[in-house]
């Protein structure tokens, strides 16, 4: 019997040793900066933009070289937002987080995992409109993140095809349909669509929804003052259906990467996407001549805005052991020459005052930025459990407007009731 006990104890010890290994690693990761100043501080920079991986790496390299005591490591997994949520569930929050101003950011900020940066010197040079956008999103006056870059979405068009077929850049919905028809008659794909990837259906949806029903629609919907089953929202639905008449063959079978390559090869006249797709398109064909214009969702020119939001914001984990070093890294990123380098590569817009985007491919948005004709993304105001992208993807297959608006209403109510 004695032997049995000792063997049990031995196996328990063995287990503890195993557990010890796991725990030990974790400790050494998080505490080495505190113990010895001579040791390198390891910072994890987690971000969600696959397109920007190389640009971030270039800046990180520059930072690491200038700061021998700090080593920043970029982490950019596929489906990053979901990965981040699973890591937060494990209480394993990265030191610095780069995210879009999405519902995910809003949920995480509200849950209090980010350090409160209100009044921090880092905020001084940031354009106030983007700070306001973040505050509106989380419904609070505190700043939990620093806007880094802004994006813009609308229509990307192939200049060569437009000239060849004599198409003018459209300013209203009717002109837009005429232009699309002209391209179609000219034997081109008018609007390349990538409906296999559900999220890409949100790009035209955001333009239509933000321009036609407006962002406040969603706040009113949350309060129960309005329903999706309304004439205004039906206009959005009808126009969504109209767009797929101008798509290529097999538009349900093509994904985002297919779309970027096909558009780069000059297969289509127009492509409804954000500026984030431009670097990918240029990678596939550096010689393609492209331009952008705001998606004309309505026949009232004043209502047709560029959809722009905070593309990347930088936040610091509340529990990081190295908040000074993390701030230093963010401060480095906000330096005009660094952010200029980043937006030049990414065709993005700067959230830092005095840094402007001058690339000719996106100059079609400049007028809107100057006059302030910009509006935020609608889907950031739809609870993510509603899964707007899935609903839209299903709707474009079934093409049933009644079922679509009702589904939005029932899903919204279901999610609200479960809260």
């Amino acid at each position, binding site marked *: *019997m004695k*032997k*049995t006990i000792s*063997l*049990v104890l*031995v*196996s*328990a010890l*063995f*287990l503890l040793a195993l557990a010890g290994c796991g725990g030990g690693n974790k400790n050494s990761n998080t505490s080495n900066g505190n113990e010895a100043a001579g040791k390198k501080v390891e910072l994890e920079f987690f971000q969600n933009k696959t397109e920007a991986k190389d640009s971030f790496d270039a800046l990180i390299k520059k930072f690491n070289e200038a700061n021998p005591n700090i080593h920043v490591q970029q982490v950019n997994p596929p489906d990053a*937002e*979901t990965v981040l*949520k*699973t890591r*937060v*569930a494990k209480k394993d929050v990265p030191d610095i987080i780069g995210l879009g101003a999405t519902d*995910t950011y809003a*949920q*995480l900020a*509200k*849950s*209090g*995992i980010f350090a409160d940066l209100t009044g921090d010197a880092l905020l001084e040079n940031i354009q106030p409109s983007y700070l306001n956008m973040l505050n509106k999103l989380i419904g609070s006056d505190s700043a939990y993140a620093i806007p880094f870059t802004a994006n813009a979405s609308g229509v990307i068009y192939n200049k060569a095809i437009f000239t060849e077929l004599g198409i003018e850049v459209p300013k209203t919905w009717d002109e837009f349909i005429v232009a699309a028809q002209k391209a179609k008659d000219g034997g081109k794909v008018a609007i390349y669509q990538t*409906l*296999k*990837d*559900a999220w890409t259906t949100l790009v035209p949806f955001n333009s239509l929804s933000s321009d036609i029903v407006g962002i406040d629609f969603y706040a009113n919907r949350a309060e129960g003052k309005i329903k999706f089953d309304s004439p205004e929202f039906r206009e959005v639905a009808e126009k969504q259906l109209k767009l797929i008449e101008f798509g290529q*063959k*097999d*538009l*349900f*079978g*093509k*994904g985002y990467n*297919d779309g970027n390559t096909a558009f780069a090869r000059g297969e289509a006249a127009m492509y409804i996407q954000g500026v984030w797709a431009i670097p990918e398109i240029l990678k596939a064909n550096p010689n393609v001549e492209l331009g952008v214009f705001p998606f004309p969702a309505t026949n009232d020119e004043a209502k047709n805005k560029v959809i722009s939001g905070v593309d990347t914001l930088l936040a610091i984990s509340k529990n990081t052991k190295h908040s000074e070093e993390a701030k230093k890294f963010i401060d480095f990123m906000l330096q005009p020459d660094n952010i200029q380098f980043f937006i030049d590569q990414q065709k993005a817009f700067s959230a830092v005052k005095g840094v402007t985007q001058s690339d000719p491919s996106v100059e079609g948005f400049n007028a809107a930025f100057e006059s302030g004709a910009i509006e935020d993304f609608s889907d950031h105001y739809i*609870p*993510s*459990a*509603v*899964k707007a992208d*899935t*609903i839209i*993807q*299903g*709707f474009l*297959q*079934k093409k049933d407007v009644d079922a679509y608006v009702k589904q939005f209403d*029932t899903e919204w109510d*279901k*999610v609200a*009731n*479960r*809260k």
Partner: protein
Amino acid sequence: MAKKKAAFYTMTIPALLLFFLFHTFPTLQGIFYSFTNWDGYSDSYDFVGFKNFASLFTDGNVLNAYMFTFKYAIVVTIFINVLSLLIALGLNSRIKFRNFFRGIYFLPNVLGVLIVGYIFNYIFANAVPMIGEKLGSEMLATNILGSEKWAWIGIVIVAVWQGIAFNTILYLAGLQTIPRDIYEAADIDGAGTWSRFWSMTFPMLASFFTINMVLAMKNSLMVFDQIVALTGGGPGRATQSIAMLIYQGGFQGGEFAYQSANAVIYFIVIVIISVVQLNFLQKRELDA
């Protein structure tokens, strides 16, 4: 005696502790959270009793996921078992390059599900439509994964292609346990090929048939990786399995507790199915 016992304890107890730590404990945690309204990342949560479970039974998306998963699992289980039994019979006969073929048929099993999924994703998106266009077939010229009606067939093809490998090995092992001399006896009695298979080979394989059915069914009820690589649950919710719904709703949707309740129900369903399946098939084994 005591010595022997001690040896057995040393073998079982670490495994038991590990199993408890990494399997039972998270399960219990999941059951605990299913009675809360935790979103998966907040610091605080409240207890809501059976509210999550009540909501589940009125959620059309849950029903939709169950319908898809069962349709898929039944079709995949049947195809995997029929095809892998056929392949195993072939590989067990005296053919040239037998070991080479055995290696080839086992290959899919050592490839990662995601890698296979992404390769097939490419095949469905580009290779098949190209062939379809040449043949002038409208049906083949479009990406099957983009069709709300047929996307699930694409997932079945990938799962069967890969799932066959492992079940073939099990059937092959089973075939080799059958003594040669009973076939010689059957030859003397003048039994045909079909009656030899049906009244000798198949009954002798009964226990392997049972385990293959249960394994294939269980694996396909948990289908997840193939869907991530092929459709992401789309178009719409056409190929959203239960595991996929739990993951997407729980993490992307920020409804961890609600989907935990879904997982608890699904756990019970799988236990019931496995017990019923084992009982039924084992009875058949005895009858045979």
